[in-house]
């Protein structure tokens, strides 16, 4: 299945990406994505963030084809 990933703020800086589309096995969840990023980006596991799936902050793990998964570092509006 295909998952659209978005990185913001400090995480966009860390990964060098704002957006990417990943082709992943069907049973892939948030945890698998995090495992992949931990391997790929040296300080990923030190980062603080929330996860939004299709623009809703969630702690759910399961993903489906076409989901938009955003990794959101601490908010700084105002």
């Amino acid at each position: 299945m295909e998952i659209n990933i978005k990185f913001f703020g400090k995480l966009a800086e860390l990964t060098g990406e704002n957006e990417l589309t990943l082709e992943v096995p069907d049973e892939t969840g948030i945890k698998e994505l995090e495992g992949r990023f931990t391997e790929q980006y040296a300080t990923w596991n030190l980062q603080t963030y929330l996860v939004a799936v299709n623009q809703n902050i969630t702690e759910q793990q399961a993903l489906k084809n076409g989901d938009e998964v955003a990794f959101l570092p601490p908010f700084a509006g105002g």
Partner: protein
Amino acid sequence: MKQEIKNHFINGPISSDFIADAIKKHQVNTAIGAFDIFLGQVRQDEIDGKVVTGIEFSAYEEMANKELIKLKEESLEKFDLIEAHIYHSLGSIPTGEVCFFVFTSSGHRPAAFAATQHMVNEIKKRVPIFGKEMLEDNTHEWKVNR
């Protein structure tokens, strides 16, 4: 229910003309007896002895707009408001410039006062806006709301 996504974001600083126009536009509504305004200005903080020269704001705009619409609707319901508006800057905002503008109106002052404070606090907590504090030596720190 499908909702129109309204844009609450402004590229660059929020000018005093923009704020004055917002007030002017509401004066035709004579049911309004009270306006309340919150303005956030980029502060010249010092981080580890380095002076902040500005903040570069970015946002998850689609989600932020939805969240801001939800917050406005909640606030209109919770407080006895006539209108509520929220604007936030994107891009590089130098210190001393306004980057955040919350504007409420009501028949009497208690509703506008309470709603503005509620909305400002909730925006800081709930809305995916990110800020990079630019320092005088061209390094930066990522801002975190406390």
